[in-house]
């Protein structure tokens, strides 16, 4: 018996619980309640209320992805430079918060951001203007950055550690200064990690309904909220599935993006 067959149970499981369920979304998304084929559920994204939610989701998730990247890249470089990543200590520091419930952690930002909350007390003590962002899109972006930052740091850190120090020395040796070495060598070599980080942040941010519920008050609807409501309150699974198909287009695009730049899976989380 070949060792390949060890994978048989897992593959059966994958077909049953990954592939078939995904096909179910296609089935529901492309039929109406009577089971007849229709594109109505997908086209529904064009309705003003749905497209507004989609555009807002796109904007907020792009903003938080960019912020995560800007915060994470220098962070990963510092961690790499000081060899702070010995063993799994850094991963440990980033995974640790996950042991405090995700919802509670996010909710804690309400307390921190409130008008009389901790942050505003500090700001007023420093005679700075108060931060009044709770229940606004800004608070949602902050929640996204907070929750997904580790998913940007770890892949970038993992590619940076793998860059041979002598490759950087070689660039210096051939006359490149620090800035040139960064843009011509370090940045291009770290692209797999950056790309993987971008999707790891963008996809959950684009599709979240929890962060917007917790930090955005009840007025701000993202596309995730719309879909969630169709399934849990509206009970229109066909419409929910149709909108999910639209969402999946964005996910597929970002997955293809990863495949293109990170063929060998170097930019993984591990």
């Amino acid at each position, binding site marked *: 018996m070949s060792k390949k067959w060890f994978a048989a149970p897992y593959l059966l499981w994958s077909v049953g619980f990954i592939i078939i369920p995904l096909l179910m979304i296609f089935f529901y998304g492309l039929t109406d309640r009577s089971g007849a084929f229709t594109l109505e559920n997908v086209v529904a994204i064009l309705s003003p209320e749905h497209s507004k939610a989609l555009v807002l989701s796109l904007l907020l998730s792009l903003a938080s992805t960019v912020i995560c990247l800007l915060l994470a890249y220098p962070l990963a470089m510092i961690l790499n430079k000081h060899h702070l990543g010995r063993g799994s200590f850094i991963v440990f520091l980033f995974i640790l918060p996950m042991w405090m419930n995700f919802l509670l952690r996010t909710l804690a930002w309400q307390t921190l951001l409130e008008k009389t909350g901790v942050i505003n007390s500090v700001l007023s003590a420093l005679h700075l203007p108060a931060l009044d962002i709770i229940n606004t899109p800004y608070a949602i972006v902050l929640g996204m950055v907070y929750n997904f930052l580790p998913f940007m740091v770890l892949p970038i850190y993992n590619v940076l550690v793998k860059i*041979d120090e*002598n*490759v950087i*020395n*070689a*660039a*210096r*040796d*051939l*006359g*490149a*200064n620090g800035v*040139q070495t960064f843009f*011509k*060598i370090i940045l*291009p*070599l770290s*692209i797999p990690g950056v790309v993987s980080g971008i999707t790891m942040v963008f996809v959950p941010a684009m599709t979240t309904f929890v962060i917007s519920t917790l930090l955005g008050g009840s007025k701000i609807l993202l596309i995730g909220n719309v879909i969630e409501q169709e399934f849990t309150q509206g009970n229109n699974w066909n419409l929910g599935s149709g909108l999910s198909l639209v969402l999946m287009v964005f996910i597929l695009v970002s997955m293809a993006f990863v495949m293109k730049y990170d063929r060998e899976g170097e930019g993984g989380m591990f």
Partner: protein
Amino acid sequence: MSHKLIDLSHISKSFDGEMVLDDLNLYIRENEFLTLLGPSGCGKTTTLRIMGGFEKPDQGKVIFDGQDITNLAPNKRQLNTVFQKYALFTHMTIAENIAFGLKIKNKSKEYIQDKIKYSLKLVNLEGYENRMPDSLSGGQQQRIAIARAIVNEPKVLLLDEPLGALDLKLRQDMQYELIRLKNELGITFVYVTHDQEEALTMSDTIVVMNQGYIQQVGTPENIYNEPENAFVADFIGESNILPSTMIHDKLVEILGARFECVDVGFGENKPVDVVVRPEDVVLTAPEEGTIEGVVTGLIFKGVHYEMDVMARGYEWLVHSTHMFPVGTKVGIRVDPFDIQIMNKPESEDEEAVTSNE
């Protein structure tokens, strides 16, 4: 040979409290092929990295062509390095790799194209411009690393164990290739290796290092034939190192038997070490030798036989084209000029004396 191109004076360097180089003094002449040779951890790579600018010495100065470059960044130095594992830029084509240094210096497109062509020709890899480094074999990658360095027309090329990752046959081919390159380019090579054969084949000057000290500097012949201490003798080639006593000038007592030699000035009745190369041990009939022994081991090595001979409690290593079967009683004779006398180290530390003549 002409003037000193690189002068390292009183260089000391330690990592995490561990002394790697201790007051090292060394100069490299223009157009020389100089090899830093020694076991791993002897400080040879650190010495090279200090020249390249990747490490700063704790103490001492690096003078290049009369100028102090101790604190100069690597990108401002007129030397280029060929790294141990090639360190090619895997996200660039071969041509882009080679053009890297030239682009930074804002050379014209035509100039860069010419240089790429010329350098690829020089390393026998014409037509490889658009390949990616990963698609090349180790030997080819190494040549590209050399091409990438030499297009910048450095005055000195630093090579850090460049052949270490290659297999034996390829390594030998590349040795000749490097000598040819050196002659064609007419620049100075500083080469780091732990492989004594590589050092003996290619160098004009060999610097033997151990434990952060220079043990001996000399031509390959010099180092091989007249090792100054037991470390060098042991490290370079195979040798018999025998505890002996210098009776007086030109007479030494080895394992209780008196041998004539040519060395003078070691004093009288002084303990010394004697080095005899295996090929210099002459086996004779028992009664014709200076001392008697019995053959205890025999291996055919192609060009010669390698034999172990037990004589006066010491196992002699002998290379000879004549075969003596195991168990044969033999006599051992050594010609006076094949006996190399060395001062005995007085302590562990003494074994690693600084010297730079």
